[in-house]
Every structure is written in C-alpha cells, then in structure tokens.
C-alpha cells in the first residue's frame, strides 16, 4: 500500500494547512535551512509520495533496463506511475541534453539523502576514464556527483556488480564495478546478465513497501533471490542425480530433457533465481529451453572457462588443455621418470651387491654380520 504523504497525515489528524506550514517552518529551522527553503520543505512534505530514483547508464548494453520493463508483477507502468519517481534514466526520459542533466541535478538537490541511485553498467578507469563520457564528463565524474547524496545504491546487472563482458580478459578499458568505486553507501548488488525483470522489480518494491534495504548476503546480493544455486532449484536435477545426461545437443537424451551438466552447464556454480522465478513472467529459463546455464550472475563468468566445457582450459597449452589433460600428461611423465629411476636403482643395487661380493661375502644375508 501507498504511504500517505506527511501533509495527508497531518490533515487526517485534524490539523489545518496553517499548522502544517508551521510544522514545515519548524522542520526547516531544525534542519538549519534558510527562510527561503521553507517553501521547499513544505512542498517536499506535502508531495513526497514516490521514491525518487536516478538511474545511470555507463558501460552497458541496456539489457538491464530492458529486463526491468519486462517485469510482469508488478508491471513497470505501475512502478513508474505509483511507486517511484524515475527522475533520470537515459533510456526512457523525455528530456535530453542539458534538460536531462538539470532533471538529475534537481533530484540530487531536492532529495539529498533520500533518493535511490541505480547504476547500470561498469565504469572504465583506464585513460582517466575517457572510455565512457556523458555530457562531456567521465562516467566516474557523473557517478561521484550522483552517489554523494544517495540514500542507497542499486548495482543493476553483472556490469555494475562485477564488470561483466567488458571486464573479461584483458579488460582493455579497466571496466570497474560500482562497489570498488563508491565507499560508505549501502550497495545492493543485483547480478545477472541481465537480472530477471521480476527480481529487479522485486528489489524496488521491497525498498518502497518496507522502506528498507532487503537482507543481503555476504556478497551484497538480496538473499531472497541469490541464496540458492540454479542447480539446487533446477527441475532437471533428478536426471543429474540419476546420472542421466545429454551427451550432445539435440540427441535422444536432449529430447528427453536430461541434465545438461556435460554440455557445460554452469548451474552447479551459479547463484540465481532462474529455476524458481524463471524468465519473462515464468515462461522459461535457459535450461528449460535446452541450453546450459552460462553462469551469467557470477563474478567474472566470462573467464570461468568455456561455455561448453565443464573444466576451464589453460592458455598456452593448446585448445583442449583442461586440467585433466595436463594431469594425465604429468602422470605419464611421472611414471616414465619413476621407471627410469627404478632402472637406475636396480643398477645401483646390483653394483652394491657386486661390491659387497667383491669383499668376499656370498650374499646379502651376510651383510649384517660383524666384520
């Protein structure tokens, strides 16, 4: 339910508008504001109903915004009209250019300490930050300005949480996630490439409805959506446990919906809500549509090995060099070395025996006898 504004609350309790203005004056004085600001305070108290939100875009592909607008409960129209005031987002806002920047500045000033800052995308730190510029400023400059007065920050998607694809090796632009750049603010990480629309909406709704940050895990992710592995909520899990696997895409086993583990599925190492919440209003999720999970909500998932292999391969050892291959080669080499060593040992021992025999002893039995 919607929170009434202070003004509505005051009227409900039987006070007049005069009383309300007095209260506002007192509040302004209490907050150490000048006389001219009283009107603003009154206005803020009178009309503050929707949570002000600034949504920044840096190095990203806008899939997070796209995912957000696909939320089916609540639908995004309701979030935008009733729950939050999305005062800045390059994807949807009407204003452009300096009017857009003015809208952001306005919110930063008017709602200092109250607005939520959402960040989609990573910040490039290489070359003094010139790889992402908005309105002639670097992404870092924009972020600093907007983070200063934010009540909390939501890092949308794997880009903002861990750098995502542009931070994959060799990370040529030094794409950097938000938590490494902003200190001293609560940061809610909502990883995924993109995160599920309903999860994004869920985080916003939690903030608005309960007026506090959802409980986070030790990595800063809302526990509600990121405390289980895809593998633990996957409907193909019985096939995994049974030892029934797809051996090649579109084989008989694939048609029967067996487990995709051997196709490189990263579900066993990925924390996300896909198996339960699913995607696009519960229509499907990657595994349901026959492709393994690629681990899109995990840190640096682009460098956690190839998509269709379970084990990661090593650069410089040729394309198929997994740990097992290198291990097998090492095992072969070790066995060969030990065989060589064994041969030498035999030679040595025979020499030893020969030397002893030379001393006139018949066999090893006499070795222990007193000379």
């Amino acid at each position, binding site marked *: 339910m919607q929170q009434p504004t202070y003004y509505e609350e005051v009227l409900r309790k039987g006070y007049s508008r005069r009383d309300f203005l007095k209260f506002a004056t007192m509040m302004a004085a209490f907050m150490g504001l000048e006389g001219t600001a009283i009107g603003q305070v009154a206005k803020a108290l009178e009309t503050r109903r929707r949570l002000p939100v600034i949504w920044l875009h840096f190095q990203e592909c806008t899939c997070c915004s796209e995912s957000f607008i696909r939320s089916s409960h609540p639908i995004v129209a309701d979030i935008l009209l009733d729950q939050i005031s999305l005062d800045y987002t390059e994807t949807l806002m009407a204003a452009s250019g300096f009017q857009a920047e003015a809208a952001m500045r306005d919110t930063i000033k008017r709602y200092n300490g109250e607005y939520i800052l959402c960040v989609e995308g990573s910040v490039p730190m290489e070359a003094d930050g010139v*790889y992402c510029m908005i309105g002639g400023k670097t992404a870092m400059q924009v972020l600093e300005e907007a983070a200063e007065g934010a009540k909390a920050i939501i890092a949308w998607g794997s880009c903002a949480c861990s750098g995502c694809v542009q931070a994959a090796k060799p990370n040529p632009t030094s794409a950097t996630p938000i938590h490494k750049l902003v200190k001293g603010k609560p940061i809610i990480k909502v990883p995924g490439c993109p995160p599920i629309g309903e999860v994004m909406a869920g985080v916003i709704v939690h903030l608005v409805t309960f007026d506090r940050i959802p409980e986070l895990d030790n990595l800063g992710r809302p526990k509600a959506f990121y405390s289980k592995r895809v593998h633990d909520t996957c409907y193909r899990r019985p096939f995994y446990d049974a030892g029934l696997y797809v051996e090649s895409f579109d084989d008989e086993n*694939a048609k029967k919906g067996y487990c995709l583990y051997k196709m490189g599925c990263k579900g066993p190492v990925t924390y996300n809500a896909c198996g339960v919440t699913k995607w696009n209003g519960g229509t499907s999720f990657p595994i349901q549509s026959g492709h393994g999970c690629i681990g899109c909500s995990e840190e640096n998932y682009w460098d956690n090995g190839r998509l269709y292999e379970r084990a990661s391969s090593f650069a410089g050892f040729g394309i198929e060099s997994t740990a097992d291959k290198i291990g097998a080669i090492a095992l072969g080499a070790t066995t060969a070395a030990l065989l060589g060593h064994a041969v030498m040992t035999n030679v040595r021992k025979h020499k030893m025996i020969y030397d002893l025999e030379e001393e006139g002893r018949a066999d090893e039995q006499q070795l222990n006898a007193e000379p």
Partner: protein
Amino acid sequence: MSKRIVVDPVTRIEGHLRIEAEISDGRIKDAYSSGTMVRLLEEILRGRDPRDAWAFVGRVCGVCTSIHSLTSVRTVEDALGIVIPPNAELVRNIMDCALFMHDHVVHFYHLHAMDWVDVVNALKADPKKTSEIAQSISHWPKSSPGYFSDLQARIKKFVDSGQLGIFSNGYWGHPAYKLPAEINLIGLAHYLEALEWQKEIVKVQAIFGGKNPHPNYLVGGMACSIGLDDVSGINAERLALVEQLLHEGKTFIEQVYLPDLKAIASYYKDWGAIGGGLGNYMVYGDLPFNGYRDPASYKFPSGVILNKDLSKVLDVDLRKDDEVQEFVTHSWYDYAEGDQKGLHPWVGESKVRYTGPKPPFQFLDTEQKYSYIKTPRWKGHAMEVGPLARVLVGYARGREEYKEAVDGLLKDLDVPVTALFSTLGRTAARGLEASLVSRWGLDFYYQLISNIKSGDTRMANMEKFNPDTWPAKALGVGHAEAPRGALAHWINIDSGRIANYQLVVPTTWNASPRDASGQLSAYESALIGTPVIDENQPLEILRTVHSFDPCLACAVH
C-alpha cells in the same frame, strides 16, 4: 551568425550519443555525431572459443538483443561450413520476427513518440471525443470514453504530484507539437499499453532461447530440442503459446501501432521533406524462407540503392575486400598502416586511442577525431541502413508485399513516394516493416509446424561441433538484418581460436563521423537543413536522430 549547440546525452536511445550542431537562421548548417562509450569487445574476443562468441557479442546490445548472437552463429557456421537443420532456421526466424516486433513497437511508443506526442497536453483532451477518434481509426477494444477518462485522471494525479518522473523537463508545449489533445491522449494510453504488451511478445524468444533479453543460441542449430512426447522439449503446449503470442503481436501492430502511426503522421506531413540525408540505402538481406544459404528466399531482399534511384538495385558482396571497409580518420583509433586507409573487416583493427578534449569539456574538436564510432563505407559510399532502406529495396526490387504496403500508406497519407526519403519516411517504414514481419512470423511458424508434422524433428547439426574436426585456419562472415539495419560479423579462426573478430553494425553505418574524404554519414547528413525553432529546446534534432532509432552500444561495441 551560427551557433553551436550540444545535445548530450541524447536520451530515449540505447547508449551514449552526443550531437553537436551548428545552427544559423533557424536551421542546422552542420552536424557532428559522436559515440562516447567504448568497451572493445573485439579485443576481448581474441583467443576465445568461436563457439562461445555468440554469448559475448550478444552482450553488445540488450535492445536489439539476440541479433548479434544470431549473426555470430551464422558467422562461425560460415567459417566451418556447417549447415543447420531447417527447423533451426525457422526457429531462428521466428525469434527474429519477435525481436523486430518488440523493438519497433518499443521504439515507436517509448523512444520516439514523445517527439511528436505532448504528454502534458493530453490532460486537456475530451475523453468522449478521444474515444470517437480511437474507434474511427481502429477496432482496438480499449477505446471507451471511460477508459480514456480513467487514464486521464491517473495522469492528472501523477502530474499534480509534482514528481514528473520520466516526463520531467520534456519540451512540453513546444510549438512544434501539432497533435490535437485527443490524439496526444491516445498516444499516451498506447504508451502504457505498449509497455505492457512488449513484455509478452518477447516470450517467443524465451520459449526457444530460455530468456529475454539475451536468449541462448548455438553453433550448429538451436539448443531447444523438439520433444513432442516429452514435457521438457518443444511440444504442443510450447508451440501453441508461440502461435498465440505471434497472433497477439500481429493484432497489436495492426490495431494499435499502424493506426497510431498513420494518425500521428497525418499531422506531421511537413516532416516528409525534412531529414532525408544521404539517399544511399543498403540491405544485406535476411529472414530466409529456404535456408540462410538461399538469398533468393529472403523476406528482406538485399541490395544497394544510390542517390534515391529506385530504378536500379546493386548487389553487395561482404567477402570482397574493396566493398565494405572501415575508416578511422575521425575516430579515436589508430590503424597500423595509417588512418587514411580503409580496412576490410577480415583484417580490421580496433586499437583505441582517445585524442579528444580532457573531460569535463564543452565542445569536441570536430576537425580532428571526435567519436568512438568507426566510419564504414561501401565501395567508398556512405550508406543509410535500417527499415527505410529495407522497405525501399523491397519496393525497388518489385516485391509484391512491399509494393502493397508502401503504396497503401502513401495513399492513406496522400504523399508522394519521395516523402519516404525523410524523417517521416524512416518512422513510417518502421511501422510498415513491423506489420510485414508480424505476418511472416506466423508464416514461419506454420512452416515449422508442417515440418514437424512431416517427421523432421532435427534442431541441431553437431557434426562439426568438436574443434578437432575444424581446419587449422578458417575465415567466415555472417550477416543479418537487425531492427536498425544491415549487420555483419567477420571472423578469422586460427587453430580453433578466434584470431580476429570484427563487427560492423547498423548504427556504425548511420551514426559514424565523416570519412577520410569528408563525406558525412547518415545522421550528420540527415540533420543538415533541419529547422530548429528554439535552440534551447532542440526537439527537431531529436525527431530526426530518433527516426534512425540509435543504438550506440551496437555502434561502438
């Protein structure tokens, strides 16, 4: 006296676009388009497994999501000589149609409409009159007076709250807004309806690709097996959902998008003479009815039109090293052999070096390099790509469906065919295309059903999936028509790994800076001559730029 104005950020697009324009006597004299964000995915792809490339390049863009992945698997399949089963072709096409329907509708209502529709003015509309107009232009059921008055009340409450949210600081009341309040209200109503509808059509992609944005693709076919007798595969229930979604999508486009487009366009016919620009159009072709390798079966025929000459359509060859080339004369990159030369993407380079002003800055030095977008050229010509190019090439090739659609629209609006070479033409072509694609989506769907019915349930060809079966070296190129235009990727595979991967993307063509010989690209050239009534509210710049549907993450990648 000319004055330079800056629009940065250009909003209601994907990504980071900056426009600088010289204005004199109320018109744009010169214009500069700059992409201001770079991620260097082409560098990141080096040394990786070609089979994984679709996932990386899929993340180039979450708006035209899936199109880069599709192009990537085609590129790798081309390099390795993999032919995919017909069902996989059809599924890819159906997903592609869903993307087009989604992307075009979202562009029209959520990215472009506010250039034409005055949201605040909608409050002045008479709901009864609005209802009459709505019912006169469409069968769409949500059109009662009560519906519109409820909506109006909701918006009024919203505006009265003083928190305008995404509508704050818009150019409301600007004299270039010409629609009657009632049409503004219809536009606003459908803004919200489209917001709700768009999340439905993408379910088509979720069914076959597991999620949207960023559905999954597979080199060799698709991963979604057909399992008619299993709950896990593509079975009758899944297929029925696809069919229903495609039908609903087609209905929405025919009963909401097209009528709105025509109604709005009829008030802005002057824009049929503004924003034409280059007059060169290029299409690579896509939506194969008989497999990707049979271009004759493409629903989007390929070809090039030069100088608005619809009587001649030239052919494109992406493999020839003198056709498609990229220049960096005005882009923040260095080429090993100097910045005046163009490079074919198979030998393309992406070595970035920023030489612009130190941020924070007020203006770019547009005499020098001024963008992260490279400048592609076809046989030296600047090209416009996108829905308008496709509609014109289809029309010039004499394809019946195109002729019918185009002639119908021209008749409805009572404008000559030359009105298509304009900002309005671009926006209208997108709508026509959406409606054609919504029909084809169902055609592909029924083809898929008849294939399955005849016993063919193959969905992937895995014969060459194992890198051991690959040649030591291979070159490949794959193309597609993205919602914003002609898209191609080039790959060079060496010993099972990516040695070079280059993307030349629709918005790279359209939004690029000028080339070595000073020729402008599509945005810049279309902006020249555009009137600007109020320099502080450059609504007209947005109209023309938005008509291209910019995607900057695509353009730079």
